[in-house]
């Protein structure tokens, strides 16, 4: 694995963390939505969108230095954080199936990484 690819992977990894926080704020903001159009203008929703934009900058810089067929699958690592934050902030329970799915995703990302050289 070249240093360039490692750097790209780290950037995509960072993007996945930032993006997962974006999803948390979107969910918090969406809970405040009413029938009024102005309810879209809430701070949490705006912060969620901002986090998504920030995450996409890291992601874009990441895919510059490697194959898309290796780096895009790494986006699925975001599910780890989403599961964690869902438990932490929204009290959504961990289930055996969620762990199984997560394990398969990690295994898949590992396989794709092996295919990078």
């Amino acid at each position: 694995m070249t240093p360039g690819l490692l750097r790209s992977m780290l950037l995509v990894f960072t993007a996945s963390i930032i993006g997962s926080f974006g999803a948390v704020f979107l969910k918090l903001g969406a809970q405040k939505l009413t029938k009024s159009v102005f309810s879209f203008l809430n701070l949490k929703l705006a912060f969620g969108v901002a986090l998504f934009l920030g995450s996409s900058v890291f992601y874009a810089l990441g895919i510059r230095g490697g194959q898309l067929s290796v780096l895009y699958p790494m986006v699925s690592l975001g599910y780890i954080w989403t599961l964690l934050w869902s438990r932490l902030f929204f009290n959504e329970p961990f289930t055996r199936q969620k762990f199984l799915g997560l394990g398969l995703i990690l295994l898949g990302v590992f396989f794709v990484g092996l295919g990078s050289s």
Partner: protein
Amino acid sequence: MSTSVAAQLAQAEILAARRRSMLLVFACTVLGAAAQILMKIGMARFDPHLMALVTNVPLIAGYVLYGINTLMLVLALREGELSMLYPIIALTYVWVTLLSYVLLHETPNLFKNVGIATIVLGVAVLGRGGRK
């Protein structure tokens, strides 16, 4: 009699709504994959200057598509059942990989293919785990 007709109509309405959100999510996967390819092409000629950025058509198009895609997904996910929509969303991984091979001439190999299949399976299992 009339109540059972009403129940049938309600059932048909539910099925139609389900089909609508599945179709919408499927369209999202294709759109999302296209956005990825455009972003990758745009980033190949990335130059951190304002003029270069605003004239980078593939990059801008990729970002716009990505934004539209995210909005459509949020709308579709509000309606439909996640356990059914997650496996469809995971198709994006398949499209991006195939398009990377065909359009970006990246080398296909068994590791990547098995890895993608495993990820898709994982996302599907994850979606089922969220069902109450």
